[in-house]
C-alpha cells in the first residue's frame, strides 16, 4: 500500500530537508495527541539538564567561588575580562579553533576514504570495518594512555622507531612541542573517532542506488567524475552530519585532553573545556559560568557558519539544495 518508490527514498535520504508538505498554513491541524509526543523527552531534559544549566549561568554575573554562602554581583565584568583580559582563555579558544580545523578536515577525509574503500559487503570489508571501529569504543582514558606511550620522546614508540632506523634527527617532542602539540592531539582525536564517522559515510554510500552509477558510466564518466557528480551530492546529508558532529565533538574533547595534556593541561593543549574545568577547580564558579556562556556561543556560531558553508559547497557541485 505504501509505495517505497525511489523518488521518495532519495528525498528521505536528505537531512534537514525541504519540510515540504508540513507548513501549509491552516489546511491541517495537528492531531492533539501529537503534542504528547515530545513531552517525555522535554520533561527529562528540562528538569535534569536545562534547569541546572540555567542555575549555573545565573552565576556568570557573580564572583561566587562554588561553596561559600555569599557572593557579589559583578555585572558584566567576567565577560569583559574574558574578552580582553584573559590570555589563558584566549589561548584555549585559539587551540580549539586550530584543533577544529585539523580534526574536521582530517577526520572527515579519512573517514570518507575508509568508507569509500569499505562500502561493499565483503568478508574482508566487514572485518576491516570492525577494526577501524575498534578505537571508538575504547575508553578515552585508554586512548590517552596508549598515545602517551606512542608519543614519549625517549621510551615511546615513534621516537624509538625513528632512532632504530637511523632517522633520529626527525625525533619530535610531540606533546611537548609548544606549537605542534595541538596538531598531534588532532591526530589522536582522528584515530579515535574516524571509525565512527566511517559508519555514517557507509550508511550514506550504501543508500545510493546502483543505477545512478551505471547510468553515469554509460554516459562515459570516469571514477573521479562519478564521485563528483553522483557520490558527493548524494552523501551530502551524511557529510553534513559528519562535519557538524565532528566539530562539536572536537570542541567538547575533554577526557582525552586531560589524559594527554595533564590536569591542568599544558598551555599548548589547553582547550576551552579544560579551561572551564580548571576554573571550577580553582574555586571560581562565577567566572567559569561566564566562560561556559562564551563557549556555548562559540560552538553555536561555528555550527551555523559551517552549515552555510556546506550548503554553498553542495549547491555548486550537484543537486541544488535549499
Amino acid at each position, binding site marked *: *500500500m*505504501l509505495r517505497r518508490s*525511489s523518488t521518495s*527514498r532519495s*528525498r528521505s*535520504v536528505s537531512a*534537514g530537508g525541504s519540510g*515540504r*508538505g508540513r507548513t501549509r498554513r491552516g489546511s*491541517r491541524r495537528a492531531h492533539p*495527541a501529537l503534542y504528547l509526543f*515530545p513531552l*517525555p*523527552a*522535554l520533561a*527529562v*531534559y528540562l528538569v*535534569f*539538564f536545562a*534547569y*541546572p*544549566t540555567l*542555575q*549555573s549561568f545565573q552565576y556568570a554575573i557573580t564572583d561566587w567561588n562554588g561553596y561559600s554562602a555569599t557572593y557579589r554581583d559583578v555585572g558584566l565584568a567576567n565577560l569583559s575580562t574574558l574578552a580582553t583580559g584573559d590570555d589563558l582563555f584566549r589561548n584555549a579558544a585559539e587551540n580549539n579553533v586550530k584543533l577544529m580545523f585539523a580534526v574536521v578536515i582530517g577526520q572527515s577525509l*579519512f573517514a570518507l576514504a*575508509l568508507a569509500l*574503500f569499505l562500502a561493499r*559487503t565483503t568478508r574482508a570489508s566487514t*572485518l576491516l*570495518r*570492525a577494526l*577501524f*571501529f575498534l*578505537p571508538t*569504543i*575504547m*575508553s578515552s582514558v*585508554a586512548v590517552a*594512555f596508549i*598515545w602517551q*606511550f606512542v608519543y614519549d620522546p625517549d621510551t615511546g*614508540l615513534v621516537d624509538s*622507531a625513528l632512532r632504530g632506523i637511523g632517522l633520529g634527527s626527525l625525533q619530535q617532542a610531540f606533546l611537548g612541542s609548544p606549537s605542534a602539540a595541538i596538531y598531534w592531539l588532532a591526530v589522536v582525536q582522528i*584515530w579515535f573517532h574516524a571509525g*565512527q564517522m566511517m*559508519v555514517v559515510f557507509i*550508511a550514506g554510500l550504501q*543508500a545510493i542506488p*546502483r*543505477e545512478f552509477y551505471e547510468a553515469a558510466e554509460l554516459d562515459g564518466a*570516469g571514477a573521479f567524475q562519478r564521485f563528483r557528480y553522483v557520490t558527493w551530492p548524494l552523501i551530502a546529508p551524511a557529510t553534513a552530519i559528519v562535519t557538524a558532529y565532528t566539530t562539536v565533538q572536537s570542541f*567538547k574533547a575533554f*577526557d582525552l585532553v586531560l589524559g594527554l595534556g595533564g590536569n591542568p593541561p599544558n598551555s599548548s593543549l589547553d582547550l*576551552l573545556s579544560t579551561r572551564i574545568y580548571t576554573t*571550577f577547580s580553582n574555586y571560581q564558579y562565577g567566572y*567559569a559560568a561566564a566562560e*561556559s556562556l562564551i*563557549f*556555548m556561543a562559540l*560552538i553555536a556560531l561555528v555550527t551555523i557558519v559551517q552549515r552555510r558553508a556546506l550548503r554553498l559547497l553542495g549547491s555548486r557541485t550537484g543537486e541544488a539544495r535549499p
Partner: protein
Amino acid sequence: MTNVSYSRWLRIGALTLGVLVILVPLLVVLFGTFKTLPQLFASPLSPPSHPTLGNYRQAIDQGGLGRALLNSVLVTAAAVGITLLLASLAAFGCARIPGRFSWAVYGLLVAGLAVPAQAAIVPQYVLFDRLGLTDSLPGLVLADITATMPTAVFILGGFLRTIPATLYEAAELDGAGPLRAYRSIALPLARPALATTGVFLFVIDWNDLLYPLFFIHSQGNRTLPLALLDFQGEFLTQYPLLFAGVIIASAPVIIVYVFAQRYFVSGLTAGATKG
C-alpha cells in the same frame, strides 16, 4: 573501467596506510598485555618474548573489571534505549506539528549540543543528590539520557522531517492515529537514522568519564572508564595492566559488533531500492 591500475594501487596504498596507523598502536597494546613494563619500554613493537598472563590476572583481580564491564553494559544499554525512544517520539512530534511550536521545542532540545557538560554538572550533582540518585546506576542512566538527548534529537529530527507528509496522509485516510503513524511509517523508514544515532549514543555513553567521576563513589557501581583510571598511579601508569584492562573492556563489544554487522548493514540498507 578506465585507470584500473592507478585507482587500484591508490586504493590499496591508502588502505594499507590506514590499516597500519590504526593497527600498530593496537598491536602495541595487544603485545603489551603479555609483557612487563620494562619489557614494554625496551621493545614495544615486538611480540612478547616471555609472555605472561599476570597482567590479565591482576587486572581482573585488582581492577574489579568484571563488575565494571557489567555496569557499563547495563547503563549504556538502558541509556541508549531510552534516549532513542524519547528522542524519536519527540522528533516525530516536532516533524508532524506545524508551526512555530515544534521549531521552538526542536531548537530547545538541540541547543543542548552547545552546552559543555562541565557547566551544568555542579547543580546537577546537587539536584541528583537530593533525589538520592548519586552513586547509583539509574542516576547515571538519567544523567546520560539528558546529556545525549540533544544529539539524538538532532540526528533523528533532521531525518524524520524529510519523510513526506503524503505518506502520513494516506495512512490517516485509513484511520490511523499518530501512534500508528509513528510505529508503522516513521520508525521503519528511520531505521538507518536510528542505527546511526544508536551508534553515536553508544559511543558517548560507553566512554563517558565525567559523570561517573562525579557521581559514582562505591566500587560496585563503577563503570569501565572509571575502573581503568585505577591503573593510573600518581607517578606511574602501569601500561601493561592498563592495556590488559582495555582488551578485557573492548573485546566483548568488538565481537558483538562483528557479528551484529550483518544486521547493522541490512538495517542501514532497508528501504533502498534494488531496481
